[in-house]
C-alpha cells in the first residue's frame, strides 16, 4: 500500500494548480507556471518507474 504513494504524490502535485500558478521565477523567459509543469513530466515518470520496478512480479488480478 505504501507503493501507491509513488503514484499519488506526483499526481497531487500536478493536480494542485495553486502550488505553481505564479509567473516568477522564469526559466529561459518561461513563466514558472509553464516550466514547472514541464519539469514535472520527467519527475512523474521517475516516480512511476520506481513504482513499476517495485511492483515487478506482481500479477494481481481483480479482488
Amino acid at each position, binding site marked *: 500500500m505504501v507503493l501507491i504513494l509513488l*503514484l499519488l504524490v506526483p499526481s497531487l502535485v500536478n493536480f494542485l494548480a495553486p502550488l505553481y500558478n505564479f509567473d516568477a521565477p522564469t526559466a529561459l523567459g518561461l513563466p514558472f507556471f509553464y516550466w514547472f509543469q514541464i519539469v514535472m513530466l520527467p519527475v512523474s515518470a521517475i516516480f512511476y518507474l520506481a513504482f513499476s520496478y517495485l511492483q515487478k512480479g506482481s500479477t494481481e488480478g*481483480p479482488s
Partner: protein
Amino acid sequence: MALDPATIPVFLVFFAVFVFLGFYGSRWRKGDLSQLSEWALAGRRLGTWLVFFLVGADLYTAYTFVAIPSGVFAKGSLYFYAVPYVAITFGVALAFAPRLWVVAKEKGYVTGSDFVRARFDSKTLSTVVALTGIVALLPYIALQIVGMQAVLATILTSANLASQSTEEIALVIAFVILAAFTFTSGLRGATLTAVFKDILIWLTVIAVIAAILYQIGGNFGAAFATAKANYVTLPGSLVPGYMTLVLGSALALYLYPHAVNGVLSAESAHKLRLSTSLLPLYGVGLAFLALMGVLVYSVPSAMSFLGKFPAASQGIYVVPSLIITVLPGWLAGICLLGIFIGGLVPAAIMAIAQANLLARNIVKEYRPSTTSVGEARISKWASVVFKFVALGFVFAVPSTYAVQLQLLGGVLILQLLPSLFLGLYTKWFKSRALIFGLVVGILAGVYMALQANNFGPLTTSLYASPFGSLYIAVIALGLNLLISVVLSAILPGKRGLDIQTTAGA
C-alpha cells in the same frame, strides 16, 4: 506567401510510404487475421517499446497538434491543462491497467465491456458500457478529422488553391485509404504506421521548436512580455476549471476503448507498467506544442498567414502555419504529413476499438450463434462505417471548438469509471445501481453541456457551480458515483461476482 515547390511532392512521397506500411502490416508477424484477437490485438505479442509507441500514438493526435495549441492561442493558460493531465493519467493507468491486463489475459477478454459483463453478471450493464464507448469515440474521431482538415487547408491556402470543395474531396480520399488499410490489416497496420508516425512526429516537434527558438532568439521572455495576463498564469476564476479539466481528463483516458485495446496488446503486466511509466515523457512535446499558441504571436510571417483564415477558426492553423512559414519547404512537407497522419492513425485505432465493442458486446451478446470469423467480419465492416459517421460529424461542428469535441467525449466516457475502474477493485456494487448511475451521469452531463452553451454550438465544457466553473464530466461523475453507491446500498439484488485468476493474489 507562396508555397515552396518541394512541400507538396515531399508530403505525397511520405504519404505513399505510410500507405505501404499500412498494407505491409497485414504480413508482419503473420497470424490468423480472421480471429478477432489476432486482428485487434496483434496476437498479444507486443513488447514494452512497441506498446510505448502504440499508446503514445493515441496521445499525439490532432488533440496535441491542433486542438490544444488552438485553445491556448484563443484563451491562454487554461488549455495548458493538457500537460498535468498527461502527467497524471499514466499514474491512474498504473493503478488500474495491469489488473485489467491480468484478468483479460487469463479470461480472454478483448474489451472493458467483457470484464464488466463477467464481473457484474449483467448483459444490460455491459451493453450500456459498450454503447457509451462507441458513442464517446465519435466526437474524438471527429476531432482527428478536424486536424487532417487543418493540414489540407493550410497546404491549399498557401498554394492559392483554397476552395471548400477541394478540401472536402481531399479529406474523403484520405479517409477511403484509411478505411481500406484498417480493414485489411487491423491493429498490426496501425502499430507499424504508429512507429512511422511517431518518428515523423518527434521530427515535427523538434523541428518546429528549434525553428521557433531560433526565430525568438532562444528566449521565451519576449513572447510572454507582450502577452496578456491570462496567457502568463491562470486567472483565479479559472483555477477550479483547470483542476477539474486535469482530473476529469486524467481519469477518462484509460476508460476509452482504444486505450483498453492498447493495454491488452502488451506482452506482460511488467512490460505494460514500464511502458506506461515512460509515457509522461510524451507530454514534453505536447507542452511545447501548446506553447506555440503563445509564441505564434511573436512570429509576424505566421501571423500574416493566419490572417488568411476566418478569425473564428484561426486557432487550429497555429502549428501548421508555423511549419509552413518557418521551416524549409521539404521539411514542412514531412512535418505537415506528420500532423496529417497524426489524425489518421488514432482515428483508425479508435474505429477498430468501436468495432470490437459492437461485434463482441452487442451483436454476439444478442446473437450468440455468431462465429469468430463472423465476429471479425462485422468488426472490420463496422470500423469503416463508424469512420464515415464521424466524418459526417465534422461537417456539422465548427472547427474553432475542436477541443470541445474531445471534452464532450470525456463527459460520456468518464461515466464508465464506477463499473470499470472501481469494478477492478471491488465487487460491492450492484449492476442495477451502476446502470442507473451511468445513465443519469450521461443525461446530466449532456444537459449541462447544452445549458452551459445556451443550447448553441459548443464553446465551453465548464459549468458554473457554487464551487466555481467546473468541468462538466467531473460534476456528472460525482452524481453517478453518488447514485451508484446509494442504490447499491439500498436496492435489493446481487452484488458482483468473484473473478478467480490462477495467478491472483
